[in-house]
């Protein structure tokens, strides 16, 4: 196409000049004739260049152009391109407006951040929830405007399921925020109002805490009398068994209530456990001795201390972690088996391990066993006197010490529970204190 058009044009020009030359030869002064012909051609070309320029300048199509020839083709093509691009632009505008409108109608707030945590864009819901101002806040750092310490540290290292923090704008409202990275160095922060959920959760916790507390006093009275009866020499024989059973059950109830309250306390406490000096070795030594010297039939419990490192944490909570794990191992291991307790350190921190040769846990149950009251085999564990809360307590307490609970088990062969503690929670003896207090 292109070549043919240009060939035509060249032929036309040649013919035009040839005609001028011929006329010049006929009437004399061919140089003038040629010059005049060239000038006409230049004028013709200039006219079209002008039209093209005007069209590109944004003017409307000025029909009718020459309908044939090279210039007509060029102008027509430019016109098509322009129309196409205009339509595309309209479409983009429409899509953009739709996106704007839909994100504006969302009840969740969205804030787009660049790599420096500077605000690139946010929707009206974010204005409402976070108190951002569209006139002044584009380009400001988000952590300068939302200054809650937990948020600031989350923004520095986003990960996990996001955080919940009080709204800076609305009194007594709670927000859940999650940061999702996308594209190159771009991040979007999604904010949701979770006041209702937080309040519900709080009500639930308060209810359990209050109920446990209220149940405890009547139970104490019951156990007290049952204790007295059980010790009574004159108790008729036929009452001995029922009273002993009642005493056992009421003790178990007390234990459940105590665990429930402990769990509630752990859940409602601040996210980080305190950093008191806890001498793990002595604690474990005493604990293992107690287990090993228990009068009832039990598997052998061995203790292996590979390090003398101490932990910075809450003594009561660490005690309940160690106690619950060892207690579980002893309960679920036959008297012929063995339970090994290990305390060791490596370059990733410290690990507390309890390995038993007990009944083990089916693989598909492992993720669920730290749930409250979850039992692999309800009949058996209840008969063994567990409260069903031990592992839930362990999990929470370990988390509060910035640790991880790892569970491995083969059914029928035994289980291994490992708590990992981060190096910043450790305190090495012998002068080389590496802990940051």
């Amino acid at each position, binding site marked *: 196409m292109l070549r043919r058009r240009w060939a035509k044009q060249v032929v036309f020009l040649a013919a035009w000049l040839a005609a001028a030359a011929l006329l010049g030869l006929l009437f004399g002064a061919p140089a003038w004739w040629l010059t005049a012909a060239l000038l006409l051609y230049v004028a013709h070309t200039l006219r079209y260049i002008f039209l093209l320029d005007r069209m590109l300048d944004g003017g409307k199509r000025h029909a009718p152009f020459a309908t044939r020839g090279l210039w007509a083709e060029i102008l027509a093509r430019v016109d098509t391109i322009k129309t196409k691009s205009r339509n595309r632009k309209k479409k983009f505008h429409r899509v953009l407006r739709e996106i704007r409108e839909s994100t504006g109608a969302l009840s969740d707030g969205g804030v787009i951040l660049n790599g420096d945590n500077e605000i690139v864009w946010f929707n009206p819901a974010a204005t409402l929830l976070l*108190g951002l*101002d569209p006139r*002044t*806040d584009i380009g*400001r*750092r988000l*952590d*300068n*405007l939302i*200054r*809650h*310490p937990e*948020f*600031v540290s989350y923004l520095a290292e986003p990960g996990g399921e996001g955080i919940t923090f*009080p709204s*800076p704008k609305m*009194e007594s409202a709670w927000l859940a925020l999650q940061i999702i990275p996308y594209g190159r160095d771009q991040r979007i922060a999604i904010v949701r109002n979770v006041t209702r959920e937080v309040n519900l959760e709080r009500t639930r916790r308060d209810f359990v805490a209050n109920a446990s507390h209220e149940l405890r006093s009547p139970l104490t009275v019951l156990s007290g009398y049952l204790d007295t009866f059980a010790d009574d020499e004159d108790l008729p024989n036929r009452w001995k068994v029922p009273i002993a059973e009642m005493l056992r059950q009421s003790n178990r109830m007390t234990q459940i209530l105590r665990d429930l309250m402990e769990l509630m306390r752990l859940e409602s406490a*601040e996210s980080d456990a305190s950093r008191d000096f806890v001498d793990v070795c002595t604690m474990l030594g005493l604990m293992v001795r107690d287990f090993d010297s228990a009068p009832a039939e039990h598997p052998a419990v061995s203790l292996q201390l590979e390090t003398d490192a101490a932990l910075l944490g809450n003594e009561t909570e660490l005690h309940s972690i160690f106690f619950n794990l060892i207690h579980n191992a002893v309960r679920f291991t036959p008297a012929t088996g063995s339970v090994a307790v290990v305390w060791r350190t490596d370059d990733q921190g410290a690990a507390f391990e309890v390995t038993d040769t007990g009944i083990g846990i089916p693989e598909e149950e492992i993720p669920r066993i730290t749930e409250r009251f979850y039992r692999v085999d309800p009949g058996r564990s209840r008969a063994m006197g567990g409260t069903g809360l031990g592992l839930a307590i362990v999990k929470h307490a370990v988390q509060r010490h910035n640790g991880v609970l790892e569970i491995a088990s083969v059914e029928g062969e035994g289980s291994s529970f490992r708590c990992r503690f981060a190096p910043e929670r450790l305190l090495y003896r012998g002068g080389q204190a590496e802990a940051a207090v």
Partner: protein
Amino acid sequence: MEVEDLRQHISRSFNADIESLYNSVLTMGGLVEEQLDRAIEALTTRDSALGLQVAQDDFKINRMEVSIDEACSRILATRAPAAGDLRLIVAIIKTITDLERIGDEAEKIGRLAARLAGVERPTTNYRELRNLAGHVKQMIRGTLDAFARLDAKGALEIVKADEIVDEEYESIHRQAITFMMEDPRTISRGMDSMWLARSLERIGDHAKNISEYVVYMVHGKDIRYTSVEAIEAEVTLAGEVAEANT
């Protein structure tokens, strides 16, 4: 000469220094806000453990003050900043002092809240104190927002809001005295709540100070010890001049 953008220097590392300094001031501000929030929560919910925890956590704020102070000295020594940068550094040095004081007051409130948790409370559960605390919290938030946005007008609002806080403090004061005269058994509780109100009022004053530094930082005008109307006129004028210049 107006301070609007922190990143206007030829030296990139200077930009980074100034920016990280500025960010750490606001981080410290966030910590102070949280401390006050928790102290007030301890008062409202009678949570003595939380109150004591607040008192214990004050060291974090002190530690930040020291480190920001050091960073300021380092910038002054190595960069010898002038004009807007100098004002920024000076304002930051003053701001962190006031923030640290607010932290100290929050510590006091935490202790008092812990003590008040153990004694019988008035039927209103210290509503007037909580109101005052609400206003003071808003003042701090507004001040730090103005600091973050380099917003002199917003800072002025805070300076004005301090009057309301002062009035409220006055009325709590009178009320407490009346109660104590009526029933001498409430004197120790009344004294504690008066100290608490006093701490809150001081926090309001510190917030006001910081707002004044914000105006100084943005416009280079010292507005301390000036009437609010005069300040307003100055800031509006300065703002107009700045707009005319750009």
